[in-house]
């Protein structure tokens, strides 16, 4: 299923409708009297704090459009995610945003923040310069300090108090979302034929855009519906694969893999499990609790928490999901992921786990070429 026509599964029609034109959905939400629509990049954005302010966190992805305007600001060796995001803003397609949040990630997002602040007028602009080193007392304290600063700045920009009770409630909301998304991933792994890879991808992606209260009505229904169907489908699922990389903006990849006889049963993607990995353990200080999750959740390669954390993680995911191989989907010019690839591949090789590297830009390589590569890889497993 790729969103064309009526979807038999509850809530999926709405989700595909939202993903077809996220900006239109953003405008609609704005019309419903939200305190603010706050665009954000990166899965390290403290959505809980935005939500607790009564505003709506709205994840921004690259754009599918041809880059014209952003070419005046970014060289061609800047990734399509960054160029596409700026293109959308300069073209006025994000005019519904009341503010934008830039967590510090990589060198390119860092400069995107500057260039955006200097050229995109209108929405307020907040940087959240998180620690790069996730470990040790100093970085733990700093992580909490940065989130406190963000809370104070957001309060000032939105003119809204962000109280402890609201924060606790927000943490509860996002923990439930994480719980349902994790459950969906478990279901997918237990019975991969129940839901297509692109449908699951759409659900996770929409979770970062949709009204979170509505989302919390939709997700349990999907979980129940899928749980009821468990064991009913008899057709053999494909060979089990794990997908790894940064942002995957290409739902078609899942279809190609499935057509080539594979099935993605787990991932390490920031548009996948890295988004919902780990829950916030509530304690007396909700901001510190949010900080604690960032220190331990599955790691983005732009951050550091040990020399083998990411390779251990990917091998664990493969083992846990009983996968036969890994597909790396890496965005061209994404330095942190490209630096990690050789050592991750080596770690997988040592465990006898084959992997395939797919480097993508804003558009996928031709369908024929992809099919051949996937078929050859999956055949070999």
């Amino acid at each position: 299923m790729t969103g064309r026509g009526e979807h038999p599964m509850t809530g999926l029609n709405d989700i595909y409708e939202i993903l077809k034109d996220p900006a239109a959905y953003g405008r609609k939400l704005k019309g419903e009297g939200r305190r603010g629509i706050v665009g954000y990049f990166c899965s390290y954005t403290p959505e809980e704090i935005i939500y607790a302010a009564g505003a709506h966190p709205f994840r921004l992805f690259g754009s599918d459009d041809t880059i014209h305007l952003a070419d005046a600001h970014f060289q061609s060796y800047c990734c399509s995610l960054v160029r596409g995001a700026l293109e959308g803003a300069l073209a006025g397609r994000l005019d519904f945003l009341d503010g934008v949040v830039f967590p510090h990630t990589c060198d390119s997002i860092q400069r995107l923040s500057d260039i955006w602040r200097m050229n995109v007028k209108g929405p307020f602009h907040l940087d959240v310069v998180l620690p790069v080193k996730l470990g040790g007392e100093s970085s733990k304290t700093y992580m909490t300090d940065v989130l406190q600063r963000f809370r104070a700045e957001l309060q000032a920009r939105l003119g809204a108090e962000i109280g402890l009770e609201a924060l606790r409630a927000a943490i509860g909301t996002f923990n439930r979302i994480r719980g349902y998304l994790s459950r969906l991933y478990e279901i997918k792994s237990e019975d991969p034929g129940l839901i297509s890879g692109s449908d699951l991808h759409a659900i996770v992606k929409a979770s970062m855009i949709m009204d979170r209260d509505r989302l919390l009505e939709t997700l349990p229904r999907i979980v129940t519906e899928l749980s009821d169907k468990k064991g009913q489908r008899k057709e053999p699922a494909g060979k089990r694969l794990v997908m790894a990389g940064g942002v995957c903006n290409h739902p078609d990849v899942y279809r190609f893999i499935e057509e080539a006889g594979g099935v993605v049963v787990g991932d390490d993607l920031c548009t996948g499990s890295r988004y919902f990995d780990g829950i916030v353990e509530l304690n007396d200080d909700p901001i510190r609790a949010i900080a604690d999750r960032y220190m331990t959740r599955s790691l983005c390669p732009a951050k550091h928490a040990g020399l083998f954390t990411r390779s251990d993680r990917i091998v664990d995911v493969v083992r846990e999901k009983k996968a036969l191989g890994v597909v790396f989907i890496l965005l061209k010019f994404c330095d942190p992921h490209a630096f990690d690839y050789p050592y991750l591949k080596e770690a997988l090789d040592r465990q006898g786990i084959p992997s395939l590297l797919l480097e993508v830009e804003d558009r996928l390589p031709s369908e024929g070429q992809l099919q051949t590569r996937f078929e050859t890889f999956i055949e070999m497993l």
Partner: protein
Amino acid sequence: MQEIFLFLLAGVRKKILRFKKHRKMKDILTVYYLEAKSARVGGRKVAWITSGGPVEPLIAMNIIPVYPENHGAMIGASKMGAGLCELSESMGYSSDLCSYARSDIACATVNGGPIGGLPRPDMLVCCNNICGTVLKWYEVQARYFNAPLFIFDTPFCHTGFGEEVRRYVRRQLDEYVSFLEKTCDRKMDGGRLAGVGKLSLEAQRLWQAVLDTTVNRPAPMCAFDAFFHLALIVTLRGTQEAVDYYRRLLERMNDRVARGVGAVADEKYRLLWDNIPVWHRTRWLSEKFASHSACLVADTYTSAWCGSMKYIDENNFFDSMAEAYTRIYLNIGVDEMARTVLAMIDKYKVDGMVMHSNRSCKPYSLGQYDIAKIVERERGIPSLIIEADMVDERSFSESQVSTRIDAFMEMIKASR
């Protein structure tokens, strides 16, 4: 090894003044690398450190600092970049990654390059004030050499420097010292560190004074000379040697100024260079600009090693390192970088800006288009953007760059 320094020092340039006392730099660097390579024999430890990293605690602990970025520059200057970059690509590293990192990572596995590889590190110190790439690069090398890695995390200053950042970086200074003490199994001598700090600051002042001599017309040296003389402020900052070297260099420059001697004999146009040098084409570029009677009188690169002096407290060097190492040129917003560039344009009376759009360095290069626009708007000064790579000569088209430089210089001449 001698040959490569001779190579680095070679400066036969027709219209360009040649430095006579390059021998001194060669000697210092030769001794430095020989010492580093035989550190074990001398019972000393070797730390690999990033170019913007706080080196003073290492000097105070008698640890030999070694700079993989410097190594990258040497690889580029000796035109060995393409080969080593290709090797790294065969190891799985994308050709879009930083060529310093790629060539150094490849070099370590074959002990290749101009000096047969860097001495093995006993520890690695990575300060991310210059980029996020060094974090990944040092992770790779820490795994390869199985050596302890200390990350000195300097949060990016988009618009300012908050108190929470100061506290975080300051605390890491203590953690850094503890790391060194643990790795070396001995205590830091606070008095010695303060002394090293004073020498570091003094060398930075002298280096700034050397760079400032180019406010004179004609400029007694050009950016290509600065790229060369930079070596010590990067590698031996905090030693008496660096102070002595720059003091002598300053005297020589002042002498040239007094005699009206210029780096480019018939200096007519004054240009500003932005970004890391194109190491494999410095001589060609220098001759090319000189042929147009143009002197690159200043650059944003070599001044980065003295640009945050204003944050250093002479009497409390250790504490003030937190701010000084965090607010360096590359760790600030594009608008603040543009303000720095404008100030340099005014100070050095610049007619045009040459920007090296460096595929290898995103934090330096992304934002150049905006800086060029600001410079054009605020000062009416044109910019030339050269597409290249600091080490990997495969990304360089000499004929194309040559044509563009000619056209740019014609425009500058016409606007006079």
